[in-house]
């Protein structure tokens, strides 16, 4: 499992990204300035965090529709707690993300309910809590916190430090531990995994907790870059994160896929947003174009079934 494989999906992700970068280079060369790229990374990081959490959940054969609203919830918690509590507030925010994921995981794992519908209900709960804490957009983030997420430390952007540390931890946790193997096992064949002694309930609780924790980190980055809280900002992230996972070639049925491909999927979606922005397209057309591009990008997945890729696969096996 841990071995890196150069799969046909890797090709598709890399090719789409290369095409988008080439287009951006033609339309707006200044995009590739250092500072601009750092800003881009800060903008993309919340989606990246949510999508990484979503990947883990989807690999176990589940799906988490509540991650978007949870992002909004932690966002408003952060915007209300960071100012008065400082470092303690930071810890509480991270804990609240973990706790929310833990609750979802317990209901799904020990309640033996379908993830899609439980997380649908939980997304309603998180949205409600977010509106309860902050009925209108507002709040603030202290200066040290904004620097911590969007600033520089010895000319190294903090956002890169956060992304690299999180990715390394995730890589170790998922590809080097028993937990990761068990998570893939219940995603690939739950019954088989249970007969082999895996407890799916415990694995699910852990997986949804990690996804909640990652979403919490994403929400903190979002709070740092926006310097305020907005209870309605979250829901849009849910399906975008699933789209990123699917673009990365991970199967929604679970058990098959890669957490790194998801980062490629996030890059595709974020570059697209930039492209639409720099092309100066009216906001009237933005939804329409994003939807069409998403369908086309996913439709490209059919390229995988072309004979040339089937041959490659056969040789590889």
């Amino acid at each position, binding site marked *: 499992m841990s071995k890196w494989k150069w799969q046909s999906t890797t090709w598709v992700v890399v090719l789409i990204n290369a095409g988008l970068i080439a287009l951006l280079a033609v339309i707006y060369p200044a995009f590739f300035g250092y500072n601009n790229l750092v800003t881009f990374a800060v903008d993309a990081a919340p989606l990246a965090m949510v999508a990484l959490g979503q990947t883990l959940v989807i690999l176990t054969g589940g*799906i988490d529709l509540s991650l978007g609203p949870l992002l909004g919830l932690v966002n408003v918690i952060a915007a209300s707690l960071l100012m008065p509590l400082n470092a303690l507030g930071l810890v509480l925010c991270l804990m609240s993300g973990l706790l929310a994921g833990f609750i979802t995981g317990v*209901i799904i794992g020990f*309640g*033996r*309910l*379908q993830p*899609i*519908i*439980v997380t*649908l*209900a*939980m*997304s*309603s*709960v998180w*949205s*409600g*809590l*977010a*509106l*309860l804490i902050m*009925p209108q957009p507002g709040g603030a983030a202290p200066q040290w916190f904004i620097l911590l997420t969007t600033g520089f430390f010895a000319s190294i952007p903090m956002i890169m430090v956060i992304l690299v540390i999180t990715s390394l931890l995730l890589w170790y946790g998922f590809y080097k531990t028993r937990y990761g193997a068990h998570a893939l096992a219940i995603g690939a064949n*739950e*019954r088989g995994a*249970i*007969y082999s002694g895996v407890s799916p309930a415990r694995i699910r609780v852990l997986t949804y907790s990690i996804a909640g924790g990652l979403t919490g980190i994403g929400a903190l980055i979002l709070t740092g870059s926006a310097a305020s809280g907005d209870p309605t900002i979250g829901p849009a992230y849910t*399906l975008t994160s*699933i*789209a990123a996972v*699917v673009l990365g070639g991970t199967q*929604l049925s679970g058990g098959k896929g890669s957490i790194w491909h998801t980062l490629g999927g996030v890059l595709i979606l974020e570059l697209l947003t930039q492209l639409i922005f720099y092309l100066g397209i009216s906001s*009237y*057309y*933005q*939804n*329409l*174009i*994003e*939807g*069409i591009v*998403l*369908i086309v990008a*996913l*439709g490209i*997945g*059919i390229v995988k*079934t072309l004979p040339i890729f089937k041959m490659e696969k056969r040789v590889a096996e």
Partner: protein
Amino acid sequence: MTRYSLRKNVDLFGVWMKRPIFMVYAAMLVLFALFAVVIPGYGSLNNVMNIIRLSAFLGIVAGGQTLVIVSGGIDLSVGAIVSFADVLVAQLAVLHADATTAIIVTLAAGMLMGLVNGMAIVWLKISPLIMTFALGFVIDGIALIITAGSPAGNVPQVLTTLGSGSFGIVPIILIPWALYGILISLIMHRTTFGRYLYAMGQSRSVARMAGVPHQFVTIGVYVLSGLSATFAGMLLAGFSGVAYLGIGTPYTLESVAGVVIGGASILGGTGNYLGTIAGTLIFTMIQGGMTVLNIPQAGRYLVEGAVIILLLLAYGRARKIV
């Protein structure tokens, strides 16, 4: 055989009690009783009729969703289609289309959207969850463009009568809803197409190997869902009198929740429209009750989420494997 029928006789009441359809109607009655005690006048005939009228829109959207979910898919574009139909049927009056033309054009547009969903799912092999979600974006975008941001025009008189008219105390919308319900139930339980839906929901690969025309059925099911959402959107335009963008957005998730609370498995293969009706009534009752009790939006979200989870814990749990 003997043993089976014997067990069935002995255990009849227990088996019957455990069925989701019984549980969901019991939950609905309990909820109704609860609100009737807390809120004076909630149990009056007038209010019951009002609940039924408000449920009709969600009920019709959820009918299409029931077909899709039973066949093993999901349709997240219904909210956008409801909004689109609501806006389009009024907007066509600006182009001097008469009522019949407006209604036919709107239904055709809804059918086309379902067709796009189905064809992309079948031929581009995009997962239904993502495909219908992305198409929802596209439809919202088209609605924004054709209205230039501010919907105009007026709703045909026949829709206003159907949507908001009353026959004595009985809302007229009960008639289209009842006809729709009978039609959907006939499709599900009395046609080959309906049997194929359950077959595909149980196991797509087995259905395919058994010779079920799965591509045709998949496309058909999304077309029917698109048509249902369009129908509901037009009635909603008649009810509210004015068209506005985003009116249908909540229907997406509420229709899915209504179907699942109604006893259908989100994995497909089980469920029927009778359960869905109860599921949508539960949702409308919660919303109406919360509005009367003056509970803010936040509380409404919390209660809705909690009710879904509690109901599912009561009767929607999977069997333990070991």
